[in-house]
């Protein structure tokens, strides 16, 4: 029965060593010492032929059991040790997750461009195209074809930047601004250009820079941004103007904002009005932000004056239309309550980064 004792002793010794094997190397060493070519169990199994035949079945069963036990225990231990190793590695890798991340910082878009693109997208969604026009205009496009009378104060050199005309020959002597050429004071001139070049139906906006001789201060810039809008089609009504601008105001300022239409006067539209949006701070009750009026003026608009249609050869009996002009800096100032418009032109990274 010596073999039987040996088998039991091997198993007992293995179990004891297994408990001491703390890593995969030790475990492998143990496996080789028991199951390797020269391993203790392998050696005993090899002696199986030398025992009496009648004992072989029982001894064989015992040897197989021991071997199965050893295999199973090794497998279990391997799993345990792998888990342990993984656990330790993860513990070592743990970090203070409140530390700042490694960012790839994108740049930001200028506030005015953001709002301009937002306005473009709103109107593109309603089937408009976006037109672009020249910064330097003739008085014809900036005033005359927009029905502005010859004596209109906006034509004066106090309200417009006139520029040197490099081809003044053949033009009548001038007094007003000493030139027939100026930096556009409004994007409205694009109405005329566009109607000259396109047949109705017209659904157009024209965003762009305009210039007026206002010394830069907290509330004025000599250069600012307007978005002109023009619709000319059959059967266009004042109701269409309202529906369009109501939609625009809610898109740009929020669904909860109300609009108010105040009749006004512009040379190139009739009837004309100014549009106010309810104050976002007090919602119409009156507060410091809206100077206790409850409303904030945001744009001017009106039905295209038949005289303007005559200048561009559109039949005012067949077509009607509306036009509007939005001040982008005004929208920006209202949205963010900007204290000083000059910040928009300084390029200060601390300002630009905020939007």
């Amino acid at each position, binding site marked *: 029965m010596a073999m039987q004792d040996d088998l039991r002793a091997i198993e007992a010794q293995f179990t004891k060593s297994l408990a001491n094997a703390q890593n995969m190397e030790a475990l492998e060493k143990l496996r080789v010492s028991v199951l390797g070519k020269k391993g203790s169990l392998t050696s005993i199994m090899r002696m199986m032929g030398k025992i009496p035949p009648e004992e072989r079945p029982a001894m064989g069963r015992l040897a197989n059991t021991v071997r199965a036990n050893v295999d199973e225990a090794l497998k279990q231990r391997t799993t345990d040790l792998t888990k342990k190793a993984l656990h330790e590695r993860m513990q070592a890798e743990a970090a203070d997750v409140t*530390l700042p991340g*490694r960012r790839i*910082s*994108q*740049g*930001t878009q*200028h506030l005015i461009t953001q709002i301009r693109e937002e306005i473009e997208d709103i109107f593109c969604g*309603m*089937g408009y*195209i*976006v037109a672009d026009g*020249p*910064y*330097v205009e*003739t008085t014809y496009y900036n005033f005359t074809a927009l029905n502005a009378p010859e004596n209109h*104060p906006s034509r004066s*050199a106090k309200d417009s*930047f006139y*520029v*040197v005309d*490099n081809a*003044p020959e053949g033009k009548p002597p001038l007094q007003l*601004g000493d030139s*027939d*050429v100026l930096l556009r004071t409004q994007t409205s001139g694009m109405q005329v250009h566009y109607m000259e070049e396109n047949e109705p*139906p*017209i*659904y157009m906006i024209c965003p762009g*820079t305009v*210039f007026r001789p206002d010394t830069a201060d907290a509330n004025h810039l*000599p*250069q600012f941004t307007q978005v002109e809008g023009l619709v000319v*089609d059959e059967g*266009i*009504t*004042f*109701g269409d103007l*309202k*529906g*369009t601008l*109501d939609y625009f105001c809610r898109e740009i300022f929020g669904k909860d904002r109300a609009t108010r*239409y*105040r*009749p006004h*006067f512009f040379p190139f539209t*009739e*009837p*004309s*009005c100014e549009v106010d949006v309810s104050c976002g701070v007090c919602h119409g009750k009156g507060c410091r932000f809206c100077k206790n009026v409850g409303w904030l003026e945001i744009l001017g608009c009106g*039905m295209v*004056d*038949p005289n303007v249609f005559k200048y561009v050869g559109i039949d005012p009996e067949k077509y*009607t239309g509306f036009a509007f002009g939005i001040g982008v800096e005004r929208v920006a100032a209202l949205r963010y309550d900007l204290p000083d418009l000059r910040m928009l*032109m*300084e*390029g*200060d*990274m*601390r300002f*630009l980064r905020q939007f």
Partner: protein
Amino acid sequence: MRVSYEWLKELVDVPADPQELVDEFTRTGTEVEAIERMGAELDHVVVGQVASKEPHPNSDHMWLCKVDVGAQNLNGDGEPEPLQIVCGAQNFEQGDKIVVAMIGAVLPGDFRIKKSKLRGVESCGMNCSERELGLGDSHEGIMILPSDAPVGMPFAEYRGMADTVIDCEMTPNRPDCLSMAGVATEVGAMLDVDTHMTMPSIKQEHGVGPDGADDVSSLVDVQIDDPQLCPRYTARVVRNVKIGPSPEWLAKRVLAAGARPINNVVDVTNYVMFLTGQPLHAFDLGKLSERDGKRHIVVRSAREGEHLTTLDEQDRALTPDMLLITDDRERPVALAGVMGGLNSDIDEGTVDVLLESASFDSGSISRTSRNLGLMSEASIRYERQVDAASCADVSNIAAALFEQCCGAEVVRGMVDEYPLRKEVPAIVLRPDRVRAICGAPIEDEFMTKRLERLGCTVTPTDGQLSVVPPTNRPDLEREIDLVEEILRLWGEGDVEPTIPAARNHPGGLTEEQRRVRLIGSTLRACGLCETSTYCFADARDLARLGMAREVKGVPVRIIRPLVSEQSEMRRDLMPGLLRAVAYNKDHGVPNVKLYEIGRVLFGRENKSLPDEQTYVAGVLSGSWEDDSWNRKHLSLDFFDAKGVVEELLSALRIQKVRYRVPEPEHSAWLQPGLAAEVVVRGAVLGWVGNIHPQTLDLFGIDEPVVAFELSVEALQRLAQDQLPYEDVPTLPGVSVDLAIVVDEDMPYEQLVQRITSAGGKLLRDVRLFDVYRDPVRVGPGKKSMAFSLTYRSDDHTLTSKEVDKAHGRLVTKVMKSTGGEIRS
């Protein structure tokens, strides 16, 4: 236009609360700028009655009174309760009506009435003297009011000092509303209520001459040189005026309208102007020269070199485009429609008055007023057109008031030169057209009614309306003008909003517009922030950069710039961006990464309009970010800027881009050796490089700045929407490293070109991963450039033999073509 509510009340039915009218003004298009309460300084000052008067317990000259102020003071049960007031005056008795300043009143001189104790007794107000109320100098005792003064009535109301002045901003198309009568008409139409304008009339006209047989034409004649500039001129004469202060009602109206009462004659002319909108001028007849027993008024243009001292005692140099009223043609006595002359003004000695009521050309008055920098109540009205048709009526109103307020005798008749009479033609108004334009169900009756309220004559004809507007509405000429009137009175706010269908009109951005957005979003993804700088430029900008005039052309020059640094339009984006860099550095911002997509304007010889082009430019200075706990950053250098340009061109799918060393004379603003032109198929798109340290110095920057500038038009031209698809490799490639030692002046671009052409079709990628210089190991004047080369075939996995063969051939060829050596 200052609208006195008390005055307006006399002319039209108005709501009790001025705020209601203000809301209606806003709704119908009259902008209200301010609401001013006259008599507000007398808030909390009321009529009281002395209920009891007892000696003050601790004083021998003061009284302890109970003063009844009616409902102005209520006890806890809501019952009127007299105020206890300590008073030192001696001139009153129990039962007298007096003036009480209650707690909260602020009397002239910022004298605040508070609850106080006088010799130990509580006093809840003050009984006022005239002086304390700012009404006079009397301080003998407190004011005693007539016994019928209603107890509790605010004192300002009692004295008729209470008024609300609504200050309205009238749009330039509404000259009619620069008068109380015009505003009353507007209010009548707005509220659909009646006006009641009764004007004073002359009681008696006096003849002149022997036995009084002659009329005014024996005293005055009028001659108009140019009827276009003066369509009508009327003159009346009133005699024996007694110059003195105006009656209180007149002074009050003039004051409320915003003028200072001067004397009865001047105040009448101002009052009538505020009432009717027709400016009047009163000359002292005695100061006008007489010839053949008559005064000769001549309306003519000024002559070169003429001068006139106006009523404000300023000497005015006149120019021929100014219109004058002259005395017998020679002596100017007034600047027509703007201001009278000092030589013929009304003063205490005035006896006879010549009254002018005339119409002048609005453009001429506007120019004169602007050129002289002289605005008056008259010029403001003439500028917007004064109704010639009513000159005579207005003159009669003024004459009647001279009679009434100045004791004047009105000379019979009027000299009325009216060479240019304008007819007001009828306008055809189609009610269906009104509804079609407005998109609102406005009824015919509404149109008729409100137009009539505005003073129009409306006659229905064949389903249409024939409308004759009043003469004081030059803005009503066409059907659309009437549509505007109808809509604003009906209510723009009540029109139902609809959105047009935009049928047969596909909208959206163009390809070019989407690409401009892509340029911006790519630069932002690269970490640059968009900025916006002025399109104005300093005339010295390009010289600072050393940019050549041949390239940049002539500037667009502003005739009257606001500041000398903005005297022309920019021809390059870089100066503005460099100023932005300087601004940031000056404000302690070390890392600056900016781009701008903006327009530049190139003037053209013999062309009125410039060539306008769009450029995109960027500036980088400092480092990408501040160093953080787990990442350190290098200073931004040439290759950061170039990387941005490469990324941008790649986003636009622009291929075959080359970077060329520019001629120094075409890149004076760039540091030599760190500057490149961006070239695609022979065309220069722009440049990238380090800004020259001397240029930086001129812009006040003392740190390196790398920058780029590209033509957006060129980018648009070369950009592609898509490139052909290439198969994704399925078979593994083999990488082989190759370090070649070449002469220092061999450019990378050239070396890569040699490698690529030597590599054959199996060579798929060439990547530079190191550049190494060492005088000993590499050799002086040499550099080692290490590449990682990838070989791959699309149809089979390459064997090492194939790779060795291809690589060996490559090395031989490259050595030969470059004269380089393999570095092992």
